[in-house]
């Protein structure tokens, strides 16, 4: 009896060794261990074995069953991994097929430049304020010390809606509107669209400006210099030099124009800087006491500075754009470069 079991065990071992695939393993498992399997039959007839032989017989049976099961499992695992390896070998995708996605869009270079500049001033504690683009002549000119019939009005070609209303020619009217409603200390920037009745290769009738101003006790011209230096260095790099020249704006006194060393040629002279090595970038000055007075501030108590810059101009220098007329065109091939 025991020998019979042992020979079944050996036979099963032989068959498992000869098995070629998972199907064979499955068949062998059924043949020996299935419900009607050879070993299962022997297990069922355990009751007919004499009481004294039963323990040894039972143990041998169990051992054989475990042996076969173990062998089957190991062989099965073997086949599975081989089969997986084979199927992996045949599965191959073309990784050069383009990815499936909606490409990100791009912010307009003017927005990107404006955002960068705005962030610099916000980090210095400036507030952002806005004003209307269609503005009263009063705020655009008169309150900025440019009365009617003042030749300084020729500095800006103005679009008129009627005698009292204009398209703002600069963001400076926001300065007056803010001062009218607030008391110092003030640290404000006012970004936005401005309009000039002028269009040629280097002018577009609508562009963007950023006005910045500060009013407090003891604000000095040296502070204006320091603040603009800090700003220029943040945008164009610490190596950029600045040049302050006297100039004239009716709403500042003293007034200055600020040049930076040409970012294209690094000051050696090129087309962009017309060979001078310098590029004009900012207009600035100490707020004219008359403007402070018109807003109800005491010019003996408060002083302030203001500056304004053209965003398209900064963007052109930053990205090396050589034609201002590209900005309003919105050609996809232009927009997607930034």
């Amino acid at each position, binding site marked *: 009896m025991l020998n019979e079991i042992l020979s079944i065990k050996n036979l099963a071992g032989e068959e498992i060794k000869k098995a070629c695939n998972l199907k064979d393993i499955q068949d062998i498992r059924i043949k020996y261990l299935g419900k009607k399997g050879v070993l299962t039959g022997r297990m069922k007839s355990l009751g007919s074995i004499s009481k004294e032989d039963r323990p040894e017989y039972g143990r041998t049976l169990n051992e054989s069953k475990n042996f076969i099961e173990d062998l089957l499992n190991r062989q099965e695992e073997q086949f599975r991994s081989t089969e997986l390896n084979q199927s992996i070998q045949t599965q191959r995708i073309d990784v050069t097929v383009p990815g499936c996605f909606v490409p990100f869009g791009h912010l307009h270079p003017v927005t990107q430049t404006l955002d960068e500049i705005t962030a610099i001033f916000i980090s210095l504690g400036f507030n952002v304020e806005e004003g209307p683009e269609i503005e009263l002549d009063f705020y655009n000119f008169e309150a900025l010390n440019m009365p009617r*019939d003042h030749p300084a009005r020729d500095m800006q070609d103005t*679009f008129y809606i009627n005698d009292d209303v204009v398209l703002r020619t600069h963001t400076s009217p926001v300065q007056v509107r803010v001062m009218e409603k607030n008391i110092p200390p003030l640290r404000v920037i006012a970004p936005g669209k401005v309009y000039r009745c002028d269009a040629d290769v280097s002018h577009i009738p*609508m562009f963007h400006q950023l006005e910045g101003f500060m009013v*407090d006790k003891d*604000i000095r011209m*040296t502070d204006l210099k320091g603040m603009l230096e800090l700003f220029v260095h943040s945008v164009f790099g610490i190596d950029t030099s600045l040049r302050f020249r*006297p100039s004239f704006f009716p709403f500042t*006194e003293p007034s200055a124009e600020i040049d930076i060393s040409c970012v294209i040629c690094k000051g050696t002279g090129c087309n962009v800087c017309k060979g001078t090595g310098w590029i004009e970038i900012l207009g600035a000055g100490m707020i004219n006491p008359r403007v402070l007075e018109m807003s109800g501030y005491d010019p003996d108590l408060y002083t302030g500075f203001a500056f304004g810059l053209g965003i398209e101009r900064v963007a052109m220098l930053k990205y090396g754009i050589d034609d201002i007329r590209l900005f309003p065109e*919105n050609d996809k091939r232009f*927009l997607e470069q930034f």
Partner: protein
Amino acid sequence: MKASYNWLKEFVDFNLPHRELAHTLTMAGFEVEAIEEVEDDIIFDIGVTPNRPDCLSIIGIAREISAVLDLPLKDVNAEIRKQEGGGPLIEIKAPDLCLRYSSRTITGVKPGPSPEWLVIRLEAHDIRSTSNIVDITNYVLLETGQPLHAFDLDRLAGNKIVVNRAGNENEFHTLDNEKRTLNKDTLLIWDDEKPVAIAGVMGGLNSEVSESTRNILLESAFFNPVSVRRTSKFINLKTESSYRFERGVDMIGVKSALDRAACMIADIAGGKVSHITDIYPDPYTPRKLCVKYKKINSVIGIDIDESFVENVLTGLGFKIKREGDGIVVTPPSFRQDIQRDVDIIEEVVRLYGYDRIPSTLPAVQMISAPVHKTQEAIKSIKNAMVKSGFSEAINYSFLNPEIMDKLNIPPEDRRRKTVFIKNPLRKEEEAMRTTLIPALLNNVSLNLNRGAKTLRLFEVSRVFLPSGQKLPDEVIQMCAIYHKDMSASIWDDKHDGFYDLKGVLENLFSELGIRDYSFIQEATSCEPYLHPGKSCAITVNGEKTGSLGTLHPSVSTAFDISGNINILELYDIEKIQKAVSPTPEFVSLPRYPYVERDLAIVVSKDITVGQAKETITGIDSDIIEAVSLFDIYTGKPVPDNKKSLAFSIRYRASDRTLTDSEVDVLHSGILRRLEENLKAELRT
């Protein structure tokens, strides 16, 4: 203003090469914009700011050079050796517009060509030589900044000058042979009978100096700047004279310029110079300004030496008297721009050199800088759009009102009531836009013409709508436009771009934290430029805030663009910003498992997914967690007039594990509801 290097040198004996001189002028506030080398001379093109009419002259520029370099300034030779005969008859009938009129006659002149040096000098300064007498008046204008005019004395009726308004005289022939229309306040120079010049702007043909002229009357005057400016604008004529008069000439210099010209004419064209007639009823009174040294230093931010201040101001022609801890300054008559102490401070720091003052950072009091909510919302919107594949366009705010027809905008629509610009650059840019749509459609057209296929563009800008007030309402809108190229991708992406754009908006709202929104489709189109069957209104918190839809085919045709074009519009970003929810509130994650069941129904084609979904969620139960559509099918075996909708419904209770039987009951309840309300059938 052009200025010759050699001419400047006649007044200041500087020893600087021209490039250094240009730099010196630029750094003193007179930007040398161009340098032109001509035969034996160098011509600077100098930008003179409107506050400095005194520097619209060689002497003015020379004075600046002398002050910066601390060198003496030479005088103009204006001494008339011999005066013969009385001065001319002059009468000022408009003393408010003519504050001084000085005149001499010169008799027996010989008009002819100017000497070569004079011709060369004028031409280098962009003035064409005509004849010696006129050339000399122009030469003195350049040299002193004082405009002069020479009349043919024999053509002046009564040999007399009257300064008066035009009154009823409404036309005048200027010497450039143009007929000029006048208004009643135009200041004219008359003789005894007729007008002979437009004061300060241009002389008349009827009294012009010609080859046959023998006797002249020379005019040097101070006309009211505002009057000259208005006249020049009104008749649309800008001359070297009007440019200087409207900025203000030197009241005191009027006489010396007259004498300088008279001398030169006598020297070059011969003739006898008469005595002067100088009508100057209200002579110039100098201003006195007090400046404290402390103030100079506190505005600039450094200590400037008192002797430097005094030296510089003296060099510029200011008279100075020390008084207490400051100075009393009397600016010269040609410096009308000096009105208060800061103007003097500017002069000091200008000549000290802006480049020499140091940089400091202001010592400030900390203040709270509140976030600009609209700006923040705009930023979020722009960033969400960029992440969804849209690029930002920025278009001109101008609009061609005729485009409203192309957009099918009805006549009574608010967007037709545009704000007009009085002086547009082009007829097509004569109004301010009331909608962002046309500009973006033009962007699409331009890009398609240049070979672009898929286009995703958006713009966030202001539109200008009528308000009934002086200023219009400026409303910030967002508009996105999607031109979908159906053949562009190898990936399965053949559905209508409408749904892409709808998805973009839903993502945008999710980013902004806007949850209460819906898409309302009415029987008629929500916007006239959208396809009535393929568009809807967008509501936020129940209020209409935008539109979404396919471009109306007739608008496509009008703009000459084709393809699958969808438009998303948000009418008022500030309003939407107010619906933005603040910080999100955390909800605990569910603790019990969910059960998911699918439900496929067949309904009539005109039943919308939204109706079906509402019918499902409308059942009285709190265990429906989510309903999601996963299939829409038309075609066999579904009957022609019907479609199949397949939903996956997720059930979950927050306080227990659901049993199969309770889900079964609810699920079949939902089916019954769909059968009853929508005549749906279970798809088998």
